[in-house]
C-alpha cells in the first residue's frame, strides 16, 4: 500500500469510526437483551458500563424465547426447510436465465429482460391472492413446494438481474475459447460460468437467505398460521403478544433468529472473497 504512515493511520481511524457507527446500535440491543424489562425503559443500555452491578442483568429474555412452549425449535426446523430450497432453487433457475440472457441469441430477449427488471418493483403483496387461488386449484397449499416456488417467484427477478449483470461481464474470450474447443452451451455454463460466478451466486444467496429467513407474510399465507408450521419470524411475533405487551422479548429474539444467518455468512463470504482474490 502506498501512502505515508499518517495517511494509513487516518484510513484505519476512518474505518474504525464507520464500523463503530454501524455496530453500536446492534451492540446496544445485545446488551439490552440481557437486561430486565423494567430497566430497559428507564435507563440507557450504556449505563451498564458505569454501573455494571446495578444494570439489572438477566438471561430470562433468552430463557423465555428458547422455552419449549414457544415452539422455537420447531420453527427453526420449519424455517430451514423453507429457506434452503427457497435459496438454491431461484439461484439455479436465475443462473440459467442469466446465462441465456447474457450469452445466447434469441428473439424477444430484450423485451423479456425489460419485463424482468420491471418486475423488481412489484410488491409481492399484490400476488398473494392470485397465487393462493392457483395453489388451491392445484391442492398445493400448505406444502413446502408451494413456499419454495413462491419465494422463487418473488426472488427470481432480483436474482436474474444481479446474476445477469455479473455473468454478462465475464470476459468474452473465455467463452469463445470454450466454444472453439467444441463445448456446448450447457457444458460451458456448468463447467465454466457457474464456477466463475460463485461470488455473485454467494452474494445473491445471502440476500435471498436473509429475505426468506425473515419473511412472515408469504409463510403465513401459503403454509398457514398454525404452530406446527410456524417459521421463526411468526414464532417470535407470536411471543410478543397482541399489542406487543412482551416487546422486550424481541431484544433476545432478534439475536436468536440471527444466529443462523450469521453462522452461514462467515464461511460463505470467506469462500467467495477467496475465489475472487485467486481469480
Amino acid at each position, binding site marked *: 500500500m502506498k501512502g505515508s504512515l499518517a495517511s494509513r493511520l487516518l484510513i484505519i481511524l476512518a474505518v474504525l469510526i464507520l464500523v463503530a457507527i454501524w455496530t453500536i446500535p446492534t451492540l446496544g440491543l445485545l446488551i439490552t437483551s440481557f437486561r430486565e424489562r423494567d430497566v430497559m425503559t428507564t435507563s440507557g443500555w450504556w449505563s451498564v458500563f458505569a454501573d455494571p452491578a446495578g444494570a439489572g442483568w438477566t438471561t430470562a429474555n433468552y430463557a423465555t424465547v428458547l422455552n419449549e412452549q414457544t415452539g422455537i425449535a420447531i420453527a427453526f426446523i420449519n424455517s430451514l426447510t423453507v429457506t434452503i430450497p427457497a435459496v438454491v432453487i431461484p439461484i439455479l433457475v436465475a443462473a440459467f*436465465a442469466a446465462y441465456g440472457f447474457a450469452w445466447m441469441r434469441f428473439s424477444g430477449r430484450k423485451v423479456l429482460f425489460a419485463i424482468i427488471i420491471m418486475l423488481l418493483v412489484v410488491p409481492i403483496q399484490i400476488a398473494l391472492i392470485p397465487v393462493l387461488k392457483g395453489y388451491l386449484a392445484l391442492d398445493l397449499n400448505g406444502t413446502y413446494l408451494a413456499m419454495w416456488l413462491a419465494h422463487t417467484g418473488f426472488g427470481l427477478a432480483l436474482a436474474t438481474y444481479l446474476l445477469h449483470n455479473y455473468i454478462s461481464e465475464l470476459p468474452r474470450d473465455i467463452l469463445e475459447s470454450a466454444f472453439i474447443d467444441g463445448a456446448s452451451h450447457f457444458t460451458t455454463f456448468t463447467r465454466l460460468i457457474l464456477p466463475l460466478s460463485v461470488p455473485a451466486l454467494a452474494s445473491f444467496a445471502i440476500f435471498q437467505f436473509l429475505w426468506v429467513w425473515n419473511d412472515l407474510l408469504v409463510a403465513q399465507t401459503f403454509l398457514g398460521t398454525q404452530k406446527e408450521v410456524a417459521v421463526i419470524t411468526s414464532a417470535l*411475533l407470536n411471543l410478543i403478544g397482541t399489542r406487543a405487551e412482551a416487546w422486550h422479548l424481541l431484544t433476545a429474539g432478534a439475536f436468536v433468529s440471527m444466529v443462523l444467518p450469521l453462522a452461514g455468512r462467515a464461511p460463505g463470504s470467506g469462500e467467495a472473497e477467496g475465489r475472487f482474490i485467486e481469480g
Partner: protein
Amino acid sequence: MVANSDAREPHRPAFVSLIVTSVARTAASVFVPLIAFAGLWQGFLFLRDTDAPRPIVAGIAIVWGVGGVALLYVVANWVVERFPRQWRDRVLPFVFVGPAVVILFAYLLIPTILTLVLSFQDGASKNFVGAENYIFAVTNPSMIEAIRNNVLWLAVGTGGSVSLGLLMAILADRVPFERLAKVLIFLPMAISFVGAGVIWRFVYAYRPAGEEQIGLINAILGALGIAPQGLLQLQFWNNFLLIAILIWAQTGFAMVILSAALKGVPAELLEAARIDGASEVKVFQKVVIPSIRGSIITVSTTIAILTLKIYDIVTTMTNGNFGTEVIATLQFKQSFTFFDYGKGAALAIILLVAVMPVIWYNLRRFRGQEGFR
C-alpha cells in the same frame, strides 16, 4: 460456433421451420417445467400428508425439491441437444431462460396485470370507474408529500448506501482487520426487520427532559447540553433519520458487491497508470471507476428500486405521520388497511411507472451485448 452466422438460413420453407421451432420453444419453456412440477407436486402432497417425523420429512423435501429442479434442466438440455441443429439453436435458449420466465410470469407478471385491471375498478373491485383512482392518487394531499419523500429516499438512500459501501470497500482493503470490519458493516443485513425496528427505537427514543434518556442520540445531545428532541417528530428532518436506517442496512450489500468488483480490477492496469505518474485520485477516477462501473450500476439499481418500494421502515417507525409518508405506505394503507383495492392498485401502478427510467437505463447497457448462437 461463435455467433455471427445469421447467414446460416434453414433449408426448409421459413414458415414450417417457424411453426416447428415455435412449438418446440413452447414445449421447452412450458411443458418441461410443467412435467417436472407435476412430479414434484405429487411428492409434496405425499410429504404434506405423511406422519413421519418432521425433520425427516424436511430433509426428504429439500433433496426432492432441489434435486428435482436440477434434474429438470439436465433432462431438458439432453432432449434439446438431440434436436436437429437449427431447431436446437432456436430452442436451447428457452431451456435456459424459459423456466425463469414462466415462473416470473406466473408469480409476478399475471398479478401485475390483474393489478392494472383493479386500478380501474372501485374499491370492492366490482365496477369500472375509469381513471378515478389515478385522479385520487395524484390529488390526494398526502401524495405530494409522498413523492417528495420518495425522491429523498431515492437520492439520499441510494447515494448514501452506494457511496458509503464504495468507501468501505476501498478503505477496508487497507486495514489489517479487513475481514472483521466487513463482517461488522454487513451485520445489519442479517438482522430481521423486526429486530432492526427495536434496535433503532433505542437510538431515537425520547424521554422528557429531566429523565434519564434511553435513546442513544438524545443521550449524546444531553451530554452536549442540548435538550432532548422528539427526533422522529421533527418534520422533514425525520425523513433523514428513517433513511439512515436504510443506509445502515444496505451499505453492507453495496460494500460486498463493490469490494468484489474492486478486487477484480486488473493489477497491471493500476500499475500502468501509476507508472504514467497519475495521482491516486486520478487512478481512481480514470481506471477504478470505469472498471467497476457495471457493479456500481447494478448496486445502485437494486437499492434505488428498494427505496422506491420502501415501506416497512416508515410503517414501523412513524406510520407515515409527521410528514414521512411515502408512496408505498399510501398504497399499503389503501390495499390492506382500508381494503380499497382500486386505489391501492393505482398507487402500485404509479410506482411501476416511476421505475421506468431505471429500466430504460439498464436496457441501454443491455443492448451493447452480443450473444452466442
